[in-house]
């Protein structure tokens, strides 16, 4: 489902040389797998997730959503390095909308929209709208236990409620790949349990899920857990079926 090879990313300090964050990272995730990437703050977890989700470009490396983007308008598309040029900005946006769902640590709901409209927003950019989409959004909110808050605005919701809404937004288009960046980082234990359970169910239903976190224990059992250190994934290839 997702294959990345040799991902390299550096950032330029305000004054000084470029600082390497990822130094040749390889990742493979298949449908139905829940992969957890752990690491200390600043280790490059979020950067890795951004590269995998096409939220920013790698300096070098190859990335392919196997079997998915072959059906996309842009054809058999590779990401990063010289292959990234084959995918225009518009095609990259389209790929994000159709194939990738994001759950962020700080929820990133739009404050000017209600909870329901925040969920439905995910469908707007992939050409799906209308009553059927709204009905599906209400179902998801119901499943996550926040249906009664659907007409509330984000500032009127607790952190746990906002993350549940954000999860609904991430899965509304039923994307084959779900990327979660510290999804429980701002939540209490009860809400963290709800979100972790939702991610696990997503993988069990056939989705590919990648979670980066500094609390990997919240997401086990997982298909694999590995650690990112010194810009590389330690333990790759992954140990399968990691138990708590």
């Amino acid at each position, binding site marked *: 489902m997702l294959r990345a090879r040799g991902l390299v990313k550096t950032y330029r300090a305000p004054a000084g040389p470029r600082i390497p964050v990822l130094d040749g990272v390889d990742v493979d995730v298949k449908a139905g797998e829940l992969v957890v990437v752990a690491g200390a703050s600043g280790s490059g977890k979020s950067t890795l997730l*951004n590269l995998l989700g096409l*939220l*920013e470009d790698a300096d070098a490396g190859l990335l392919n959503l196997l079997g998915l983007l072959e059906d996309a308008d842009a054809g058999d598309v590779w990401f990063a390095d010289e292959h990234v040029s084959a995918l225009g900005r518009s095609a990259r946006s*389209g790929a*994000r909308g159709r194939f990738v769902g*994001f759950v*962020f640590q700080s929820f990133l709901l739009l*404050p*000017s929209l209600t909870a329901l409209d925040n969920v439905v*927003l995910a469908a707007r950019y992939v050409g799906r709208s209308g009553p059927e989409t709204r009905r599906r959004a209400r179902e998801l909110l119901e499943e996550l236990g926040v249906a009664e808050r659907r007409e509330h605005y984000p500032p009127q919701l607790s952190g746990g409620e906002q993350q549940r809404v954000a999860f609904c937004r991430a899965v509304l288009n039923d994307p084959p790949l779900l990327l979660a960046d510290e999804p429980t980082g701002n939540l209490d234990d009860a809400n963290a349990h709800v979100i972790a359970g939702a991610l696990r169910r997503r993988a069990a239903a056939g989705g590919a899920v990648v979670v980066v976190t500094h609390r990997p224990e919240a997401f086990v059992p997982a298909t694999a857990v590995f650690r990112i250190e010194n810009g590389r994934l330690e333990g790759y290839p992954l140990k399968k079926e990691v138990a708590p």
Partner: protein
Amino acid sequence: MLGPRLLRGYGFTVAGIAIGVAGLTALGGMSERIVRFIEGGDRFVLGQISVAGRGLGMGTGFTAGGLLPASAIRAIADVPGVAGVQPQVMLPLNPTTSQFMTLTQELVLGLDLSVPIPNRHYPTLPVRTGRFLSGGDRHVAVVGAAFASSRGLDVGARLTLEGETYEIVGVLDRTLTAPDRFVIVSIADARTQWVAKDPMLRTVLASGAVPVRAEDLNTGAAVGWRTGEDPDVVARRIAERVAGVNVQIPSELSRQLRASTVFFSALLTGIAALGLVIGGLSVANTIAAAVFERIRDFGVKRALGATDAQLGREVLTESLAVTLSGGVTGIVIAIALGRGIDLWISRGQQLFLFSARLLAGALIFAGLLGAVAALYATLRVVRLSPAEAIRRGA
């Protein structure tokens, strides 16, 4: 339809744009007012040939000179090309140096109503309430809109001029030019006021040194020309054939009037430029700031799959809605402010003119500038990767 949902979260932006557009519209309203005043005066002087007796005194309105006796008026009427001559008496209502020959001067205009008004552009003066003067009227007056407004006068009210009481029988529509401050009476009444106002004239008349009859007491005359005649040619013909008169050539008078208003033209150009700069900067800055403020939202939307084109359309739609809302609010504020100033501070004088072209121009200007600012800000924002946009907006 600009729904409240679309504008949610844009309250301060709308307020910022409203202030900018209000400033632009208010300054534009003052500019429009001055333009209308100059245009009105120009239109008046081009509609008639103004003639006065030769001399230095009695400079009021568009005539300047001495007495224009009845014999001169008859001679003017006999000049080929002349269609009508209306004797007039034009006096300052308050003959103090502080008001004499100023743009806000209040004038008493006496008309000989046995002759139709010969001005081609003002054959009648529009009456808002009551009626205009008719032949044989005495001790009645028709007053201009600003004059009536500044004194709270209406039809039926009484006005005392040089110790005589006049009943107001009509109030003119606002013309935004000189007649707004006129008190129009019959020429007989105006002659009586002239004698009462002018001690030197009384002395001359009492001495009997000069044989002057009532019909000779005219400060000037409005002269019309026959259709097909060139008014400048007719005016020069009058000057050649009638002795002892000052004749204003319409086109020259128009040029002089425009030259004398060069200061005002420069002033209004400055006001308009200032309005455009202040209002424009306010609108552009507010819209651009509003877009940059939402940089995180744009990052999220791009993460959800929004393309540059989709994002651009959204921003333009929102900015247009916000700009138009702010624009309309600003226009309402400007009009309310202008009306308030006109009513309470300037005592009935109209300092602002909010014409349709001004309001439409302000709205279009704000909309265009808002769209350009939004486009610029959007282009800056979409250059960032979604991750960078989210980071910067955090």
